[in-house]
């Protein structure tokens, strides 16, 4: 009898111990954690952030690795990550960073300053030709990182740089011990391809890759070696598991969010989804968070490359007056009301209210005035010469502009349809050419277009980090990218202002200089903007601990504090 009881007790004890052993570090019973399912519209093409420029890879890198310093997407402030504190030298060029002690990679190897130096070496290696290197150069010169000891590094900027250390946010710190051989042999470009066993993807981030099913999902589990702790001293991340489902179609994403089989979606909701999601939120299935005004409104621009073949014989396509006239002839409020169902505000330039301190409310802008638009068009020779209600140019040919835009994006296509109708009223014909993304980009890069309505996501609010748009040499200087020297005096003026702005360490001066940039921009309107949508982030009601921001990734920029309450999705 007693023997039997003892056996039973022993059995239970062993079982308990086993359970504790397997559950151990997971803090079973803490009430937080769980499994979060997020969707992503495009699949990654690598695990190697330095090699791949595409966004999903950036997202995965944010989950599985950590930077030295992170920029808070909501406040814009610098937050300690792998570096706990930093100090600037008197000339403001060199920063000394203290690295976190006792941190190990997900495979248990200790993290030291050698890993930081290694990451910088890989970043700037010519053979690697890193996709993020150009964004980490100041005036085409690299930053220099030196190790002062195992846990102190000094980073020297080649020139004064306004945004300062926020630049470090985009560099994931990579494991020297697993990748150095590849870098030395020149094979770094091929490491961490998607067929790498997940266990080999070693990082300092809150999660590690557990499984990848191409075309379906990528599963992450918590990194048991993660260094982060919450304010109560509890180990982060809260989530046990995070799943990225690859769902190419935005409608499908929305359906699954409403049905409760998704917690997070790729980006903000479209205005047309609002009504349905609001009903779901009334049923406590979904939560809607107003994150502010979008920072990447879409713009209409013309191909301003001098002598571009597509504008041959129609010089008026490149005149400032044409763009001003369009800006005057389009009733932005109508676009806000129709296309965005009111969930937007009129936009007159690329810097929206979402940019906080950088936004200049007093900037002069066009107000709806079709009569003035007509007069402007007449001043460049476009007028109705045969009384058919359509404008013709000096040679009598109808004035029509072909605008290429992204196919399948209802916001872009609808905005253009509205612009088309409104410009039609002053006799300016618009042909909308909706193209697949690849074809669209091919035409833009090749300069094979008249006008385009498109945009690129903005990943940082600091203008110095978006110099690719502002500088005439930039790749995202859409209307005439990659100029060797500024083609127009006003582009030169913007270049100069931007350089001064970037090199200044005085925030007030930087804001003032950037306001001047915006003023010059508004004067010539190389891009015409119509509306800046309000960003509403939708999440399942289960998600807690999210701090949604307007900049991508809106929620997953801070994955470690997310948690899921209640029953998780299977």
């Amino acid at each position: 009898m007693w023997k039997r009881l003892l056996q039973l007790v022993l059995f239970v004890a062993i079982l308990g111990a086993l359970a504790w052993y397997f559950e151990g570090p997971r803090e079973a019973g803490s009430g937080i954690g769980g499994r979060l399912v997020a969707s992503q519209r495009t699949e990654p093409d690598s695990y190697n952030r330095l090699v791949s420029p595409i966004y999903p890879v950036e997202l995965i890198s944010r989950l599985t690795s950590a930077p030295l310093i992170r920029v808070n997407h909501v406040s814009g402030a610098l937050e300690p990550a792998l570096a706990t504190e930093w100090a600037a030298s008197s000339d403001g060029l060199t920063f000394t960073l203290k690295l976190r002690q006792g941190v190990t990679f997900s495979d248990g190897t200790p993290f030291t300053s050698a890993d930081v130096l290694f990451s910088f070496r890989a970043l700037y290696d010519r053979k690697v030709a890193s996709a993020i290197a150009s964004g980490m150069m100041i005036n085409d010169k690299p930053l220099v990182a030196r190790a002062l000891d195992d846990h102190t590094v000094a980073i020297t900027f080649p020139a004064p740089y306004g945004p300062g250390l926020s630049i470090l946010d985009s560099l994931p710190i990579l494991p020297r011990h697993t990748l150095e051989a590849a870098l030395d042999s020149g094979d770094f470009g091929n490491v961490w391809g998607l067929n790498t066993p997940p266990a080999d993807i070693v990082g300092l981030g809150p999660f590690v890759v557990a499984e990848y099913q191409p075309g379906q999902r990528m599963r992450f589990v918590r990194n048991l070696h993660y260094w982060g702790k919450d304010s109560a001293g509890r180990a982060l991340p809260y989530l046990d598991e995070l799943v990225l489902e690859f769902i190419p179609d935005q409608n499908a994403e929305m359906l699954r969010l409403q049905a409760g089989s998704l917690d997070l979606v790729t980006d903000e909701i479209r205005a047309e989804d609002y009504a349905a999601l609001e009903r779901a939120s009334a049923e406590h299935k979904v939560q809607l968070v107003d994150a502010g005004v979008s920072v990447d409104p879409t713009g209409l621009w013309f191909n301003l490359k001098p002598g571009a073949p597509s504008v041959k014989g129609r010089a008026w396509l490149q005149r400032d007056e044409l763009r001003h006239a369009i800006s005057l002839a389009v009733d932005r409020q109508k676009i806000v009301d129709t296309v965005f169902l009111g969930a937007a505000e009129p936009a007159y330039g690329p810097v929206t209210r979402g940019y906080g301190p950088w936004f200049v409310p007093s900037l002069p802008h066009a107000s709806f005035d079709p009569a003035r638009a007509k007069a402007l068009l007449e001043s460049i020779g476009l007028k109705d010469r045969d009384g058919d209600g359509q404008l013709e140019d000096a040679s009598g040919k109808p004035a029509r502009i072909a605008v290429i835009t992204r196919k399948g994006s209802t916001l872009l296509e609808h905005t253009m349809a509205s612009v088309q109708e409104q410009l039609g009223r002053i006799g300016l014909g618009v042909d909308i050419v909706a193209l697949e993304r690849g074809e669209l980009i091919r035409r833009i890069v090749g300069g094979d277009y008249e006008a385009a309505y498109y945009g690129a996501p903005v990943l940082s609010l600091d203008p110095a980090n978006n110099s690719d748009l502002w500088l005439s040499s930039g790749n995202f200087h859409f209307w005439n990218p990659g100029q060797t020297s500024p083609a127009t005096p006003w582009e030169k003026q913007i270049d100069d202002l931007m350089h001064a702005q970037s090199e200044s360490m005085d925030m007030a001066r930087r804001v003032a200089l950037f306001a001047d940039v915006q003023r010059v921009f508004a004067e010539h309107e190389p891009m015409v903007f119509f509306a800046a949508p309000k960003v509403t982030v939708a999440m399942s009601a289960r998600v807690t601990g999210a701090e949604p921001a307007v900049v991508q990734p809106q929620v997953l920029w801070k994955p470690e504090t997310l948690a899921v309450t209640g029953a998780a999705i299977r």
Partner: protein
Amino acid sequence: MNLALVRFALRRIVSAAAFALIVAASAFTLTRLAPGDATTELVASGARPEVIARERARLGLDRPFSQQALAWARGMLRGDLGESSMFGRPVRALVLERAAATARLAGLALLVATLIGLPLGVISGATPRHWVARLTAPLSLALVSILPVVGALALLLLAASTGWLSIEPGAIAVPALALALPLAASLERLQAQAVRDVVSAPDLVAAAARGIPPHRLIWVHASRQSLRPVLGVYGVVIGSLFGGSFAVEVITAWPGLGRLMYDALRGRDVFLVSGCALAGAVCLTAGNVIADLLRAIVDPRARETS
């Protein structure tokens, strides 16, 4: 099985295989001829020229077209369809995976259509005054008039507004019904016609005179005889269904061959496009071969033509 039939079958199969290969080759050529390739996406994300060049080299896009085509043809003979640039996986695995999804959908649709269509067809063909037949006739006429696009949209609306069927991506009911209902109606009308023909045939009239009970007459004798022409249709149906329906799969987000082809075309994924074309052509030609064979079995004269 006589020798002529076997010879006929062999000839059809060989020419069908040749067809499928030619179709795949033309798809490959056409996709390569169109401007742009799989790396335009990289350009879009601001990749450096070195990165793009590396990717193009990896995908073999930097070689002249003749070499690419030769390499592709060589792989094809080994059963290797190349690697998809969009998914970074072997095309063959991808196509087979999606073909399985399409097959599941097509199989279900075919089953549903058969189960609904054939019995109703027998009833309305044999007893046109029966209330079932009276109900079926207008209904099937309406269903036959539903285009795939219209059917998929209408079912989606029905499912979304009533909640009777799941509209989540991956739910099979909506796409299967969108395919099955018009097909069921077609089969019903065809079967009814066939039964009508058979019922009025002299041998059945004679059988009825011999006192065989009418229901037995209809369900056993007449339906068996009338099934032969209907069988011939199945080959074509199988071919078209298993090739993947573009409209239904795209609208209902079913991850089948039709959808894959659509995505591959959009992503300029050369190998995937030709792989999909091959799969589609194989299904279509296989369906045609089956149809021809069934027709040849039913009607020996058919062996002479084509």
